């Protein structure tokens, strides 16, 4: 470490930097912390300070058939969208990494674009596409909508990983008698798998709490975020805090796992 304490002006700047970083994190995570605390509050309304703690609302939420159906649907859509994104994103990443072809930069741009588009643009565009083509709105249309931006996460993760794999590993495999397909399954794929899983987990997280695109493309059934949103419109009930915490928890765990996988695969190099 570099000692900076000897220079007072620099350490003043550093203190200001540290403080602003703390403020940003506070801004990001304080609301989450408050929600988590409220979800354990025994009161029927959100009041501060919290008098007594209970897990009652989790119990209520878990036995609410509507919420339960929402959770199941969100999981199903998340897994499907992530699965599709893994398949399409990985194949696209391989094409980008291995081959030189016309329009490669354009393909890359088009694959990354959906994640930067506001959800409302994606939602409106896909809704009009589905109505023009006569595709009936259902859970399937939600999955398609989510897949568009989930691909980006898998693609970026896998492209970054493939770029780290030395090219001569594939050549070494071929040199030792592996056909291109066997070389892929025995060398490229196992080395890329952590990035595929990490990208898939992030994709699942994004799909699990997505609400805008879902709102435009949904059929009859509501995902968990839509259930929460609908409940809030009818008026506050404390089990909503618990449901919201579930989303936070699932996202948190998935992102943690993705981070750990990415990090350990990098250090194994």
């Amino acid at each position, binding site marked *: 470490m570099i000692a900076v304490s000897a220079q007072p002006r620099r350490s003043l700047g550093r203190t200001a930097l540290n403080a602003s970083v703390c403020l940003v994190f506070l801004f990001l995570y304080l609301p989450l912390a408050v929600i988590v605390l409220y979800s354990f509050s025994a009161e029927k309304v959100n009041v501060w300070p919290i008098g007594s703690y209970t897990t009652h609302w989790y119990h209520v939420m878990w036995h609410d058939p509507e919420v339960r159906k929402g959770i199941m649907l969100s999981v199903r859509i998340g897994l499907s969208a992530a699965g599709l994104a893994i398949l399409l994103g990985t194949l696209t990443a391989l094409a980008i990494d291995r081959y030189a072809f016309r329009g490669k930069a354009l393909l890359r741009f088009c694959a990354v674009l959906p994640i930067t588009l506001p959800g409302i643009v994606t939602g409106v565009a896909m809704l009009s596409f589905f109505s023009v083509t006569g595709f009936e709105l259902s859970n399937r249309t939600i999955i398609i909508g989510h897949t568009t931006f989930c691909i980006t996460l898998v693609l970026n993760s896998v492209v970054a990983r493939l770029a780290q794999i*030395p090219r001569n590993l594939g*050549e070494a495999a*071929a*040199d*030792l*008698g592996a*056909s*291109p397909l066997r070389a892929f399954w025995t060398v490229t794929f196992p*080395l890329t798998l952590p990035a595929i899983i990490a990208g898939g987990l992030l994709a699942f997280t994004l799909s699990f709490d997505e609400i805008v695109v879902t709102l435009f493309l949904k059929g009859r059934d509501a995902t968990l975020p839509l259930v929460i949103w609908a409940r809030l419109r009818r008026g506050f009930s404390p089990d909503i805090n618990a449901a919201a915490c579930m989303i936070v928890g699932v996202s948190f765990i998935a992102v943690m796992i993705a981070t750990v996988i990415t990090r350990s695969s990098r250090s194994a*190099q």
Partner: protein
Amino acid sequence: MTAPISVGAAIELADVRKQFGAVVAVNGIDLNIRPGEFLTLLGPSGCGKTTTLRMIGGFEWPSSGSIRIAGADVSQLPPHKRPVNTVFQQYALFPHMSVAKNVGYGLRMARLPGREINERVAEALEMVRLPNVADRNPGELSGGQQQRVALARALINRPSVLLLDEPLGALDLKLRKAMQLELKQLNREVGATFVYVTHDQEEALTMSDRIAVMSRGAIWQIGSPAEIYERPASRFVADFIGQSNLLEGVVEQVVEASALIRLAGGAIVGAAISDGIGAHEDVLVSVRPENVFVSEQPSEGGIKGRVADVVYLGAYLRLLLDVGQARLLAANVPAGSSFVSGAEVVVTFPASKAVAFRDQEAVDTM
């Protein structure tokens, strides 16, 4: 055109060319490599040596020309169908497999039974003197150990040809010297043809049966280390292999395979010449510093000169002499000799240790 097939050549390159876009990497190479031979492709970076090796391995396909291995045309075969194995630069070990899995990879691809694979992996690791690392990951090994694993992995398929792409480049000097001898020994033991790529002329001289000196996509000279060192046939080879004095002169008289040459300073020296050089031609005379004799005694023959500088090199002194040529002439004299800068001297060298050739590079650039 039917290329003559020399019986028993392990590898035969016939007029092989490789172009990357507008860049010509290899410009029509003909090369016959003998079975069991240790052949080195030697040249500076960008001379086409690695591209040539990669074409033999199948990682690049020639733009034109043909490559035969053991008599069979392999020009259009992908790497996994060629009877060659490669030791890559930076080793290219699979990081997600143990050492044993790395070494056994080729046998698994050949779908050999598990027991035989285990036996041969143990044998191969024994051969490269690494019996105790089978279960470790390549990342835990030192550079030298990784090098041996790469060697074992490439040799376990018992290839008739082993290609080595600057395999010792990442090792420190001492380890490199040891590995050079080991590779040479391995070549004799396993009987495979070794094709070795390096830019290190010392390495090439130490290990090779024959050296092909390459520059600008072509082979400039091919021969045993002694032939290449003692009888360079061009300015490039004389300069690239070891140190050489190049003296400008004109042929006075040709006697069989040698000639009398009048140097730019007026002195007449004898040197071996290559075929086709006649009287009155401009030539370069190449002579190694260790073959130059310097004397302070005035004499009739020899080249008159003056000591410009004396450099102490431990085992000997290097004299830099002004002999009326464009470049100073270097000569090695025993340490402890009493030459000083400015002294008038006479320089001689035996005709058998000097060689004369046309200055082809000068012709090329005209």
